[in-house]
């Protein structure tokens, strides 16, 4: 009986309890079949439809830390400089260091001071996040207007300005995820698997230690 029970637990919408007992006593085999069929059947009929794989690809342009989803294309800091000057400098400063808004460059060694400057260079843990954020949100009012090449180039420009890569380093789907960000280990908890358990982390009163 043990395997049947185990199977039941992973069955998303198990049959009602009473039915389970009856079946358990007399027909464990049928129960297995019922569960398998159940997994393919939604509870509410004809609510929503199945999206096509293509639709999902078009809707989901998020880039994870391993960069699996990065599209083809490439760019260097050199390619990125003129785009940055045209599209970003007015808010983030000519070199990325002066603002007036969110400074994107600099801040090395300031995190323990009373004036911490958290930038892509001094703080961000993953190079892929730079790509994802520029691609999804920048510049305001013209989001999602860049080609993949342009996003690679802008990302390369910010990494270069922060002294993380060289001016001629080519950023693409292979190289970008490999870029080692200086503050990668600057976060608590260090292991991503430990994040969800607030108790274990010692969080109290709405604060984590």
């Amino acid at each position, binding site marked *: 009986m043990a395997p049947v029970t185990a199977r039941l637990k992973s069955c998303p919408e198990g049959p009602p309890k009473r039915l389970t007992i009856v079946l358990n006593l007399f027909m464990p085999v049928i129960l297995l079949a019922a569960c398998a069929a159940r997994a393919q059947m*939604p509870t509410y009929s004809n609510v929503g439809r199945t*999206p096509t794989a293509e639709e999902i690809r078009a809707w989901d342009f998020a880039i994870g830390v391993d960069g699996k989803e990065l599209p083809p294309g490439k760019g260097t800091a050199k390619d990125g400089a003129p785009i940055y000057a045209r599209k970003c400098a007015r808010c983030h400063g000519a070199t990325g260091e002066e603002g007036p808004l969110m400074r994107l460059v600099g801040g090395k060694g300031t995190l*323990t001071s009373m004036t911490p400057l*958290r930038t892509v260079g001094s703080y961000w843990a993953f190079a892929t996040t730079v790509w*994802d954020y520029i691609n999804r949100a920048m510049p305001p009012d013209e989001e999602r207007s860049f080609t993949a090449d342009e996003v690679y180039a802008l990302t390369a420009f910010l990494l270069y300005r922060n002294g993380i890569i060289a001016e001629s380093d080519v950023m693409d789907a292979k190289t970008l995820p490999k870029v080692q960000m200086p503050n990668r280990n600057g976060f608590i908890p260090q292991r991503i698997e430990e*994040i969800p358990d607030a108790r274990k982390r010692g969080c109290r009163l709405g604060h984590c230690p």
Partner: protein
Amino acid sequence: MNSKQSGRRRFLKGSAALAGLAVGGIRSASAQALDSGTSGTGSQDPHVYGQRSRFETSARVGALGVYEPGPNGPTRRDLGFRTPLQDSIGIITPAPLHFILSHGFETVDVDPRQHRLLIHGLVDRPLMLTVEELKRLPSVSRIHFLECNANGDPARAVRRAPSATVQQTHGLTSCSIWTGVPLAVLLREAGVQKGASWLIAEGAEQDFHTKSIPLAKGMDDVLVAWGQNGEPLRPEQGYPIRLIVPGWEGINSVKFLRRIKLADQPTMGMREISKYSSLRLDGKGRWFQFEMGPKSVITRPSGGQRLPGRGFYEITGLAWSGGGAIRRVEVSTDGGLTWKDAQLDGPVHPKAHTRFGFPWTWNGEETVLLSRCTDERGEVQPTIAELATFWRVNVDYFRSVAMIVGHFNAIQPWKVIRDGSVENALYS
């Protein structure tokens, strides 16, 4: 400013429908359509859509924007618009006064007929749903507060100023009755696969805001909401659908919800790894701090108000906690020397604003009024000194560090001066 803008948008929509008419003619034309009962857009008639008395002027306030530099100063609004808690009545915030924080990105004008919610990733049956289809599913209504991570941030000079009002010190929290489908229903419908441990939610706003949330929370009490206080969501609140993640930093309650992906790890987006983490003294970032702690504040009398003279006043305020229901609120009218239980006025809901009251007769002398709450888990709202101990900093750190001090929930002191005026006394 905001209501003006959305009013204009509504007006423009009306004009598109009546293309060809002169602008002056449009209003009366759409009013006629209303009177005949065919459509409700744009009417100024309070019998058709009610308005408050002209004597009532309570309003959100927002700082002028820092989001778009221009030759004559910033031109883009901040949208950090705060709820006037000093005028709050009961526990529900009227939707038009609910705080707004959009990081400089403007509210998007979403047509609910075009809007879709995609559920995909580690599920057996990816789903694409219309808003109408969502409304066919069994729904629930729940009273919950939403609070910005930065509410009460003591590093802001405005928040510490003696002249600060409770709107300026605590106005980035609001409370509504939200109506929608429990996310768990939708996820079960899609069939959660083994190995899924995170959900990544994404909105259709300008920056396609995305946020990673542990799946256990998603299966617990998260809602996909379309209703707020008996009405469809307001546009600034994410019309037509948004996530409500009870008790957690507002940033998790993704507005204009368009996509939920189940995954075996979080997406490390900008909101995960940038300014939403707070720094420790050793330079490490505390990322993924979800729950807002127990917090309370006296809303009357509060900063900027003035008692006309000695005599009786009911002290009233709000308490809330991301950890559950409020069990107890205590008030001190002598600067913390003695504490007495306040009355919980009810209704008391988990992760919701809870109204408290306390009878008080002012003798005309200078004093300090305080409140502190305890939630159902027994967590007691901390003093600023207790918070400093927990953060392993000194009390001055909170006002001198140049970063957002998130989740700041220290007890709020209001000083009553002899002339009856009330001042913020966080650091005095």
